Every structure is written in structure tokens, then in C-alpha cells.
């Protein structure tokens, strides 16, 4: 697997089970870093929700509130809110599952990360194929999508999302069983460029 992917000067790295670290203009943006936060340089931390392997309050206590955005602490955001972090505009978006109490509308978001170089990365967070996501008409260059099917997209649903969103590149995250990756990859391949980071 490649250890990083650089697109238009944004370097993307995986961070644990579902997280990412983005490097742009010398600034590190970490999304859902889980426990790895303690061992990782992050100038800003974005938490989609507070759940094992995403973000934990204990780990975040050393992060100043102006460098943390999440639905419940630091700079608090809800779907539709936009926050400027360094050169980057972060927009929170709906992410939820009707079948999972942890992934409720109130405490769970996804992120659009808008870079000034005309690049938009969409981190879906833990969500199902919800109406807000399907009806969104934004152009997405890089899609980072959860695929394990446990309170998030199944591989097949994630492939449906790819077909609606039409990203140039898709990076699947949030899976343990490689069969989920293969299933998602094989269905999605014609509609996007898969990169397994």
C-alpha cells in the first residue's frame, strides 16, 4: 500500500482505523486520529464524533479549543457550519445512521475540507447513505468513505455513494475485513479511481 497520496500539493496519509492526516502548506490537519493523536503532529484536529478509534476526550484534553473542531467540544459545529482553519475552509455535513445510537444526527458529522487550490476532500464520517448525502451537488475531488457496514455504509452502499458523488479519487476507510475492501473496490472501480492507503 502507498503510505501517502499527494494530489495538487495536499499530502494525504491514513491515521489508524479510519482517520486521516492532511498536510497542506506546512500545516497538519488530523481527522479522527483516535489514540494516535498522542504520537502524531497535528496542528488542527477534526473530530466527526466521539467513539473508539475516532476521537476520545481523554486524548484531546491537551489540544487547545481553537485547534479542535467537533460536534461537542472545541469549536462546536453542526451540519452546514463553516470554519476557517489556517488556509482551509472546513464545512460540517450530515452524517448519521438510523440504526446506531452513537451515530446520531446530534453528535456526528462529516467534513468537506476545501483547499484554496480548488480541491475538495469529503470525509463522510460514520454515516449511511442518507438523503442529504445523495442530494448534495458539490463537486468532490477526493472522497474518504467508511465501508464496513456496521452503522456505516456497507460496501455496496458506499459504491452507491460513489456513483452519486462521482469523486476523482476514493479512499476507503473504516474496515477490518479485506473482503469489504475488495467488494467495494470491485463495484466502484469504473466510477472513480480507488486508492487503498
Amino acid at each position, binding site marked *: *500500500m*502507498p*503510505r*501517502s*497520496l*499527494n*494530489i*495538487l500539493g495536499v499530502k494525504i496519509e491514513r491515521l489508524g482505523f479510519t482517520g486521516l492526516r492532511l498536510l497542506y502548506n506546512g500545516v497538519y490537519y488530523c481527522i479522527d486520529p483516535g489514540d494516535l493523536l498522542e504520537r502524531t503532529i497535528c496542528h488542527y484536529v477534526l473530530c466527526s464524533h466521539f467513539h473508539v478509534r475516532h476521537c476520545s476526550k481523554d486524548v484531546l484534553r491537551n489540544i487547545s479549543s481553537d485547534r479542535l473542531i467537533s460536534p461537542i467540544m472545541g469549536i462546536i459545529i453542526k451540519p452546514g457550519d463553516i470554519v476557517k482553519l489556517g488556509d482551509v475552509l472546513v464545512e460540517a455535513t450530515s452524517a448519521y445512521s438510523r440504526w446506531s445510537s452513537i451515530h446520531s444526527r446530534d453528535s456526528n458529522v462529516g467534513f468537506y475540507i476545501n483547499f484554496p487550490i480548488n480541491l475538495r476532500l469529503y470525509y463522510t464520517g460514520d454515516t449511511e447513505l442518507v438523503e442529504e448525502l445523495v442530494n448534495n451537488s458539490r*463537486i468532490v*475531488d477526493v472522497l474518504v468513505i467508511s465501508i464496513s457496514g456496521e452503522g456505516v455504509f456497507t460496501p455496496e452502499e458506499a459504491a452507491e455513494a460513489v456513483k452519486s458523488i*462521482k469523486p*476523482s*479519487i476514493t479512499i476507503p476507510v473504516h474496515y477490518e475485513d*479485506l473482503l469489504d475492501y*475488495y467488494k467495494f*473496490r*470491485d463495484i*466502484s*472501480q*469504473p*466510477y472513480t*479511481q*480507488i*486508492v*487503498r492507503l
Partner: protein
Amino acid sequence: MWASSVLEKLYSKDLVIPPALKWKTVSIEEYLRVYRESISDIYSFWEREARELVWIKPWSIIVTGDPPKTRWFINGSLNAYYNIISKHRDNWVWSKIALIWEGEEGDAKAITYRELDVLVNRVASALRAYGVKPGDWILLYTPPLIESLVVMLASVKIGAPFEPIFTGFGYWELAKRIVKRSSKIIFTVDSYYRRGKIVNTLETVRKATEYSGFKGKVVVIERIGPPSLKSSEIAFSDFTRESSVLVEDYVAESTHPLFGLHSGYIDDYKPITHPTGGFLVQVYSTSKWIGLRPRDTYFCTVWPGWITGVSYVVFGPLMIGSTVILYDGGPDYPSWDRWWSIIEDYAVTLLLTTSGALRVLSRQGDNYVLKHNLDTLRAILVTAEPLEADVWWWTYRIIGTGRTPLITSIPRELTGRIPVVNMYIQSEIGTFITGNLVNYTFPPIIPGSTGPPIPGFHIDIVDSNGKSVVENIGELVLREPWPSMLIEYPEEYVEKWRYGYYRTGDYAYSTREGYIYVLGRLDGVIKSSGYRISPGSIEKALKDLLGVEVAVLKCRDSVRFESIIVIAICVESPNCSEIKQATRTLLGPIVEPIIVATAPLKIIFELRNRRNIVLEECSLNAINKLLSENLN
């Protein structure tokens, strides 16, 4: 004859219909009908194909002149860059990924067609500002990087022909190409990783520019850097920094030079140049036919620097709108599963590689492949040299079976599923000319063969009197010219047309049904690991630089197909091992002889006149036997 023993290893009576192509496979009779119709009037056939491109001014005459001076699409002109890249501007391809590059250390880069166009314009603008004009040659000596392809496309955009030089060649070969092309600009890279070590490319370029007396500019792509540069060198980022002027695409006459290579002949590598119109027609059609589609993610392991890498990395897939995977390093580092990881991680759908690579990979054990899921692969294309039937079967079963059931087949115990297609190409011809075509004529595959001729190429096999032979070994020839007829060529190429047809220099055998087995060079030129190597070039280099007279022979190598043997007068200095090392340093690692043996001068001169010798094994015993026969 050695060609017969090659045929024995290739020959198979199996007819294979891969389950994935069950509904696309045609009978041999159906194939023959299409093929015969195409060669009954190849001019009309290729004229129809030429209409697939966008021409600024259509041709008034399809073809003029007798070969080798045949020219196609006379008075026609076209915007080559539009036909490769800009035509995608108004459709969905524009925002899809054009190129992905993965370095050996694991960092990857991706670029969309839109961004590729921006970068190409920037480099084209810089080239113009530097004074490069249409017709000026641009040289590249780099591994396959995104920037390398950008430079090649920028050259096309401004009408400047380019020549990519394989980094497996050493400074002496590079210096010769610099002199022959009279280029005022060379693109290279500071260094790159190969098998965990740093290859210092810039140092080789510096030696070559010094040796050749080059007075132009060296542009250094920063790969590992930052390099410390001399006054005649400039970093790629600085070269392109101020260049933002929108560059108008060059509109080329059909016969304007597009790119060139140095092709291996007996006594040296000689420059050849392909024309813009005919080449683009030929490469676009064959790219469609071999199975490339816009939705494909395509991985070609052959580097630009060889014809397959130029035609089917730089041009064909980008004209189609596919995504192309580039990589640097080798297939064996950090482990023998590097290529299978790439296929798995980037959902590769088409793989193009060489017989030599598959031969080596098949010996590493199946687990390197089987631990990866390669289900996205639709076809495996193979080229460069003969592919033995047993290696074909290994590829088909181990790489090509897959795991997910298809509508018509459930994979069993490595029974094979997707097509493994062996194809023939030559630098002078420009594209594949034989092979089962996934998107056109696909009769059953015969393992070990290079398939039947591709429509539009009038192929035959002839004996030494020029008479067609079937089920007998002869020389592979083309009876009619092809659209990408060379516009610059050496005397040897003219000689190959002497009898009114083109002699490829390869032994071949044809079945009654038209399947062709290519068996290797009959003229002393060496095919080693798929590389076409000039024996004379090695002899000249060692004479000029070490003052040593040598004869270069070839031996049958079970891995590389053929290997190089140097017969020299090994004295105290230089001794045989010094000659071996010098060959590697001067000419490059791909030219390193497997054995250097000693012999008297008289024998060396005699051996040079017997170029068709191929030792059946690469061993000192075989050499000694040959030498004793000559001594007696």
C-alpha cells in the same frame, strides 16, 4: 537450428477461450474474414481509422511513395495535443485521474486530466521561453515520473519531437544520443530509488554532457533532491516557475516528427523517428483494440524509453482517457509482490508487461501473487519476446483466475479466467501488430503464440528466397507499409525493404490458421529481458574507451531469453572482470555481460563475422566448445 528449440518451448496445440471473454470470442474463420478484408485494401482500412482522429485539414492523398519512403495522409494536418489530451476537455474524463505515480518508498501522487493540462501548458510555455522551436529535439533521461510525461506532452504541444532514453543505459549511450539529436535541452532527475538504493541519474547525465560536449541546458526534476546544481543546470521547479503564458497548440503536418528512439542494430543503436499523423492513427486504433477504455486503470510495467512504453504509456491510454499507473523501482523490492500490490491497491484493470518479467515472477512462488486479490484485472497483455507456453499457463492460472464469480463462471482451483494475450511489437513499426484483440478480433488463444496478425498489418513469414512459408520457420515480414512509416531511419532499415517487403529480423513460425510464434532475432541483435541490444555498440565502446577488441555473442538464457557474452583478450589489465564492470558503467546495467571469456584476436575477428551464433547455454563450457571449434 536454435529457432527450432525455441519453438519447441513455445508450441502448444491448446485452444483457450477465457471464461471472461466467452461471449466475445470469435471463430478463427470469422477472424480470418475480417483480417483478409483489412489487408485486401490496407489503404482504405487505415483511411477509415484515420477518421477517428480530429484533423485540422484532411489529407488529400492517403499514401505516396514506395517503401521505405512511403508517406501517409499527405497534405493533412492535425493538432496532436488536442487528439491526445484536449479532446477530453468537455467531457467527464477531464476531472478523472490521468496519472498516478508510486515511488519505491511508498509515496504516491495523482493528477487529473485537467491538472495535467495545466502542467503541460506550464512546461510548454517554459520551453518556448527557452527558445525551443517546432522540430527541435528534446531529450529525457528519467524514470517514469508524472513530470516526465508532462515534458513529453509539452513537447508534442509545441511541435518539438522528443526522445526518452532508458535509464538502464549508461553515460556513453546517453552521450551518443545527445550528439545525434543535437538537442539544446535535456530533462533528467536528480536521482531515484531502485531496490532500496539511490541511483544517481544526474551524475550519469553530467558525464554524458561532458563527454558529448553538450552546450545546452539540463533541467533537473527534483525527485529525492534538492540537488546542488551547476550553472548549465536548472531545477524543474525554477524552469517552470515564471511560465504561465497560454501556449497555442502546434498544428503539425502529418509527416512532422513526433518522437524518436535509438533502435538496436548489429553495429550500433541508430536513430529512428515516427511521424505525427500516421503514428497517432495507428496507436489510437491499436489501443482501442487491445482493450483500453476510459474507465480503465492501466498499469504498464515497460518504461518509456522502449517503444511499448512510449506507444502504450504516453500516447495510447491518454488518447483513450484511461488512468495510467507509473512507478519507479523494480518488481522485486521491497518484495516480489510489488506489482501485485499495485494492482490490488489501485484497482488496476489492464496489465501490460513483458514475457521476461513473467518468466522471472513465475519462479518466485505462487504465494506472492495469491496473497493479493487481483479481481479487478480484465486482461493481461504481454510483449517484448517469446512467451513460453508454460509461463503463459502460469500467468493465466495464477494471476488470471480471480476469486469473485462471473455471471458465466465460478473460479475453481486456479483454472484461469481472463485473457493473457501475447503481442508482437517493434520500434520501427511503432505498435503491436499481432495478438488477440480484446476489443476487436478475439479468436481462441493459443498459449505460446503471439496470436494472429492484427487487422491492417499485412504479415507473412518467408524463407530465405522470399517465398511464403506455413508451418515452417522463416522470417517475419510485413508485405505492405503501415501508417507510422518512419520518417528518419538508418541504412539498415532501407536494406530491410530491399525486396519490396519489410524484414523484421525475427524468426517466426505460423500455423495454418495464421497464429504466429515469434522465435527471436536472426541477425545477431540481442533480446535480453525484453531489451533490444546492439552487439556492435558494446564492441565499439570497449574499443574506444578501453582500447580492447571484443566480439559480442549471445546465449540462450532460461530467464532473460538471451544473455550477452563478451569474448575479449583478457590480460592483466584490463582483465575479464574489469571488462564486465566497464561495460556496466559505460553502457548501463542492462548491457552487462553474463560471461566475459578470453580468446586470441584472430578468433575475435572471426566471431564478429558470424553474428547468427546463439550458444544453447550460457556457460564457460559452451564458450570453450565454440572457441575450440573456431581454433580448429
